[in-house]
């Protein structure tokens, strides 16, 4: 079942609206100021389910004069020409990206060697200033299928360990590895690399006649 939030907004989608969670034994009523633009669906976790017809709001007691939410809306709307209250029913979206994460420790790694089942990397701790460099031996199984091809010597990746926090607060420990995707070598890069290489040719020149031999 979706979690419903009843929201009253001043008409015209400006200013600040008031969101009120329906009271129940498990979820006591709460009032939170929310930006009115939630009706434009820009808020990630809320969307308008439907406008609630007035006969229904009256039946549910939402727009009663005694309701604090209604009073607040009225106050906000007073700067406008009319006092119009629209009641919409908001549904919390079921989206996986509602998960939040809490990083406990993070490293930047450089792949040094790749074996048939594992790879080795030098790791720089990004969470602890001045931490010593470490070596990690990680299983290729820990890498997602679409990133497996990136596991090559010299590749940079990030390893985070922490919690994934579900929308309703459940926490579980998680280890996440993702690889840095630098842009590919371009034709322009190749030209530039060759120009730089050519600029070194005096030092690496076979013609030593212009130089002393030292000793």
């Amino acid at each position, binding site marked *: 079942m979706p979690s419903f939030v009843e929201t009253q907004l001043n008409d015209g989608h400006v200013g600040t609206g008031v969101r009120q969670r329906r009271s129940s034994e498990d979820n006591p009523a709460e009032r939170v100021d929310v930006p009115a633009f939630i009706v434009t669906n820009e808020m990630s976790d809320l969307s308008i389910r439907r406008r609630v017809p007035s006969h229904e709001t009256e039946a549910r007691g939402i727009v009663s004069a005694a309701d604090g939410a209604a009073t607040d809306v009225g106050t906000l709307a007073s700067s406008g020409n009319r006092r119009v209250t629209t009641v919409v029913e908001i549904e919390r979206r079921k989206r996986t990206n509602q998960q939040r994460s809490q990083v*406990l*420790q993070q490293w930047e790694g*450089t*792949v*040094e060697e790749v074996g048939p089942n594992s790879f*080795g990397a*030098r*790791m720089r*701790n990004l969470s*602890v200033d001045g*931490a*010593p*460099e*470490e*070596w*990690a*031996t*990680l299983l290729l199984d820990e890498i997602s299928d679409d990133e497996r091809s*990136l596991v*090559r*010597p*010299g*590749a*940079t990746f990030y390893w985070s*360990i922490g919690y994934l926090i579900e929308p309703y607060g459940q926490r579980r*420990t998680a*280890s996440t590895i993702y690889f840095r*995707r*630098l*842009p*590919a*070598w*371009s*034709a322009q*890069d*190749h030209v*530039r*690399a*060759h*120009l*730089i*290489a*050519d600029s*070194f*040719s*005096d*030092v*690496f020149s*076979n013609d*030593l006649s*212009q*130089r*002393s*031999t*030292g*000793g």
Partner: protein
Amino acid sequence: MIYPKDPPAADTLEVSVFGKGVGECIVVHTGDGEWLIADSLLNPTSGQPAALEYLAALGLPASNVVKLVVVTHWHQDHTAGLSQIFHATAKAQVVFSSAFRTSEFRELLGYDAILPPETSSLAEMRNIVGILRERGSHFPTPLWAVANRLLRTTPNGDIYSLSPSDASIMVTLEGFRSLIPVAGDPKRRFVAQGPNDTCVVLSIRRGSHTIVLGADLESGSDPTRGWKAIATSTTCPHPLASAFKVAHHGSKNADEPSAWTRLIGADVAAILTPFRALRKPLPTPTDVERLLGRTKNLYCAGSRAGIKAPSRPSNVHKLIAGKLHVIDSRLGQVRVRFPASGEPSIEKFGAAEHLRAA
């Protein structure tokens, strides 16, 4: 680490090997106030090249006394701070592997220059080239090391490069080519792959004493490459070595039995450096056991154990168990001196250890 402060006598051949979790540097007094530096590491406490700090502790001006700076190969555990050393040693001539004198390596330098700085692995090499260009044509050209090349004559001795062999250079060029990206390849750090048989191994003689610095040279089955090529060569005129910087952190793939019999004397002072940036850090207990079978004078410059890991929340600790180990370890120095007359001495400083049978 507190460096020793007593400079060697003019007639003393001295080698100091510096090591830590990742990094290697060798400083040699070739005699008569002349010094050589091969590779570089940074002191983890000061962030400065250990070689320069040691010479300063001895009260010697690096700008005058260092005659050769040797880049044995381009791996970062050997090049950290090398351009700083070269910049500070205005009288020094730089020695590169001949494999670097190729268009393939130059090209690699060019591509590396385009990568984001934190992804570059050849910045030190490029900086040295930059210093050479700044110094201009009045300054000595780089020396290009190949097997059995006389690099320098000293008052009572000489310095030879024993590698790379021609065959090794050819194979390494293939390696360089394989690293050069083609259009559409994702950008990433250049990491050398395959056996390391292009590094510069040095033989340094003064009087009757020889020091062999093995760099990271490895050995395979090909008699024309790596240690096998050196062992079968009859060109180098030096007597058997009295001190040996063990190649490639004591790993088995750098241990060529015929090289020990052809180049290394009995009871040699053998010094290795640790390398902890591997799943199984080097030297392994098996490596130590094998090397102790060759000499009882086996030393490790730098601690083989990593420093303490930072404290972590217990749930993090649980998730990373067995996957991480600290690379960094404490700096150490092993110093061997061969006076013209009298007994040689071996000293250890900082985290260096004398390795003994378990």
